[in-house]
């Protein structure tokens, strides 16, 4: 398989709309992170500069995932998945620890979070698996056992970090993909029913103090000192923005640092406080447009691999948006999922841009692939 063959159609049919929308989001993200820095005066950590660096690194990664034929990438799926799984094992033993979580590999001047890249790698490996095991019939339970294991391994390692949010997201995205590809309705019923039975059963076997510790372990954010305060401050920040917002760099919740985690998970609260309902809706519109484009790429792909891959990536972006916003708006529990392209965080930014590269890759190659 040739990894990269120059073809001028790659650039003729480049998906400018998707690219522009994503760049637009990244720009909003940098501008927004600047605002969280602003109130700190001279001591500001200048995170927006780091964010710009990560966008550039992400764009380079995107170029790679865009230029190499996605079928070649799928060929290497198991290798990429294995390497990331190994790095998750490494993290479990030697990872960098911060705030009670062991999630990062330290390279001295920067930290890498393998679980962020695992999100994309898992989508690729699942797409590859289902492409290898094509079936005209809906899949049965035993046929999706191997994909189940492929999902379970990283999930267990990530829960141990502990990072329940990311593990849950991996699982939800994988389930979405499997349902999309088509599972026999009986299999769905059996899986759902057994899950419904197993969970309370396992729960009953635990002793009280074990349950309690499990709850704390699984979601440290459920700690009363954390989330209640986060949510209240987040809702005050968003609500106080009103229809038109307080204006850029004018958000009092943000500038006075009442808002916790404002560069990362609660970045939307910052945006909504300063740009108001109008800004919020505009942002939602961009997000929805990206989702529509993503699903269209899935629909128009010339092969099954491209369809599944494009669907998986779009589902990942979609779920992250919905879970993050639901959490920030006080509709879902605080689980620690970043907002794609906006939250501060290098690994998340780089992996999401790489994922978009895959989307554009599939998009452009429908003009090149022949049956």
């Amino acid at each position: 398989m040739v990894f990269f063959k120059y073809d001028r159609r790659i650039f003729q049919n480049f998906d400018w709309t998707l690219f522009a929308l994503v760049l637009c989001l990244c720009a909003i993200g940098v501008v927004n992170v600047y605002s969280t820095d602003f109130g700190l005066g001279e001591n500001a950590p200048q995170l927006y500069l780091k964010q710009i660096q990560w966008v550039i690194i992400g764009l380079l990664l995107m170029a790679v995932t865009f230029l190499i034929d996605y079928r070649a990438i799928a060929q290497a799926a198991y290798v990429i998945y294995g390497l990331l799984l190994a790095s998750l094992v490494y993290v479990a033993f030697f990872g960098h620890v911060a705030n009670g979580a062991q999630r990062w590999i330290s390279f001295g001047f920067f930290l890498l979070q393998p679980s962020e890249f695992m999100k994309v790698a898992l989508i690729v490996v699942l797409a590859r698996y289902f492409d290898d095991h094509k079936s005209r019939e809906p899949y049965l339970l035993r046929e999706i056992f191997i994909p189940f294991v492929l999902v379970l391994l990283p999930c267990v390692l990530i829960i141990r970090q502990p990072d329940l949010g990311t593990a849950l997201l991996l699982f939800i995205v994988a389930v979405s993909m499997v349902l999309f590809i088509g599972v026999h309705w009986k299999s769905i019923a059996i899986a759902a029913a057994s899950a419904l039975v197993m969970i309370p059963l396992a729960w009953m076997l635990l002793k009280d103090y074990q349950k309690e510790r499990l709850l704390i372990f699984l979601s440290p954010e459920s700690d009363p000192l954390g989330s209640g305060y986060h949510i209240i401050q987040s809702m005050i920040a968003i609500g106080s923005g009103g229809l038109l917002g307080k204006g850029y760099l004018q958000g009092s919740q943000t500038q006075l640092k009442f808002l916790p985690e404002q560069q990362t998970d609660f970045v939307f609260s910052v945006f909504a406080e300063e740009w108001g309902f109008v800004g919020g809706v505009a942002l939602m519109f961009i997000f929805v447009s990206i989702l529509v484009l993503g699903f269209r790429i899935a629909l128009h792909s010339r092969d099954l691999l491209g369809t599944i891959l494009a669907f998986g990536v779009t589902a990942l972006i979609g779920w992250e948006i919905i879970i993050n916003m639901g959490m920030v708006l006080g509709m879902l529990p605080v689980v620690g999922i970043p907002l794609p392209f906006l939250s501060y965080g290098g690994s998340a930014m780089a992996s999401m841009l790489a994922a978009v590269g895959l989307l554009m890759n599939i998009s452009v190659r429908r003009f090149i692939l022949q049956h």
Partner: protein
Amino acid sequence: MEAKGSFRDGPQPAEFRSRLRLVLAIACLAVLTLTARLWYLQVIRGEELKHRSENNAVRLRAVQPLRGLIMDRHGEVLVDNRASFDVLVMPARDFQPQTIVQKVQEIYKTKSLEFAPDQPLPAAIKTHLPVRLEKNVDLDKVALIETNSIDLPGVYIGVTPVRLYVDGEVIAPIVGYTGEVSKDELDYGKGDLLPGDITGKTGLEKILDPYIRGRRGNELIEVNAFGRVIKNLGRIDPVSGADVVLTIDANLQRVSWEAFAGLAGAAVAMDPRDGSILAMVSAPSFDPNLFNSGIARDQWNQLQNNPLKPLSNRVISGQYPPGSTYKMIVAAAALEEGIITPETKVHCNGTFVLGGRAYRCWKKHGHGPVNLHRALVESCDVYFYTVGRMLGVDKIAQYAEKFGLGGLTGIELPHEKRGLVPTKDWKLARMKEPWQQGETISISIGQGFNLTTPLQLAQAYSALANGGTRWRPRLVQKVISPEGTVLKEFLPEKTGEVLLSQKTMTLLGQALWGVVNEPGGTGAAARRCDADVCGKTGTSQVIGLPQNEKARRSMKMADFHKDHALFVCYAPMKNPEIAVAVIAENAGGGGAVAAPIARKILDAYFEGKKQQQAASLAGKGAPAGT
């Protein structure tokens, strides 16, 4: 173009089209819901929330949980909680810590009290968390702050539970101490710790921390412009930690401590039937209450730099040459290996010569002809030099290890030491030198390279007492929830077997009984009227003594060169239920110093048992000590 292609295998694009439509519809619905929520917050409740943001007054107050109690085997509370009062300030808008501190200082001055900040104020104030100005203040200050609260906006008295160690020094080596969570613990913890939380730092407080810590509660409050609480927005109560029941007998623990009366040393009492530790003291010790709200630097330095090491638990981390207490093991080895019979006699004239060097018996003019029984009873060194040389160092080591020496006993406490059972291989590997015959001579009376902890000795003699079982020494019986249900029970565990013939066991037992109860026995000071104690004295040299008599005398002057006194025993002879190991550092002979301490512990044990039996007869099973 989408419909005209079809995949060679697998589902058809047409199927995906309908599924994608559904997915998109769901996504749009979700986004619409989010938008509706955004509308609700920003437009419908916009004014209200804007108002709240302008005088954002929501603050968070942690409510610390009560740590679990630590109780002795009869339910007597050894470690309790008490209230500690801190002076805190809730930051308001334009909060200036310096001005507040000045005001507090002025108010203190009226009653000539000193303001004693425990730490520099944090550089960056988190607007939603209270700042602590002073901790663990006395009631005078509490009253002063409360009565002047009008002049001190936002300042309030916080009540947090801290540990109360009832007999601090007596139990410190077992329970350890607590303190505020450290930076390392915050980073490497499971993420459920916050600055200001209390964690166990050493001993059982540390080992059992997950059980006894409990869970922090939380208060969400609204304050006015002066930082005063105007509304309680919700509270989650803290959950108390679980209580711990130890195997320790509080009374025996106190008696053991008092028996040292200023001497440095350690004692441990163990039930040979299951390894339960009844008492464990290490002297000198420290007061764990000092650590409750952060120990002062000079107090800490004093503890750290004290040459007597009050912070260490000598029972598990003090390593001493076992001295003559080791002879029991050499005797067991010699009998089992068939090197001697009970009748074998050795003539002791006070010295044993090997390679041109004279090794002395402790009795200058010798014991005359002695057999094994007399050799143990009178602790004849020459007899064991002779037997030890015949056995060789590696055979002795083999039996020492059977008795658990040179290995961890597996007690719950951290920082346990292994001690040392030397072998030829060990010396070659460690010192790159071959073994010398003369070293075997020292080894046979428990000197030389030999090192044991008092706990190992107690375990070894327990194994002899109970017929050959090594139990893991056990301090914790069970962990119970505040409601009284048992959360975890720690059962006795066998860690090994000492396989000796019944004949050897009987012989050794009789000899150890003789040590205490026969005329000429070195352990007479431990004799009780019931004549039921079996034991062995030991006197271990701290440094090698010069051959020259004069030089030896001049050296004995220095206190820290004096011998360590040891005594290890068990009682009653038939069906033993308590084994005791005592070491008194630089105190002199084992028979003179250590045996009386052991006797006090034994007396207290049997006295306590008698009282308990009487009480249970009188009160139909009412537990003693409550």
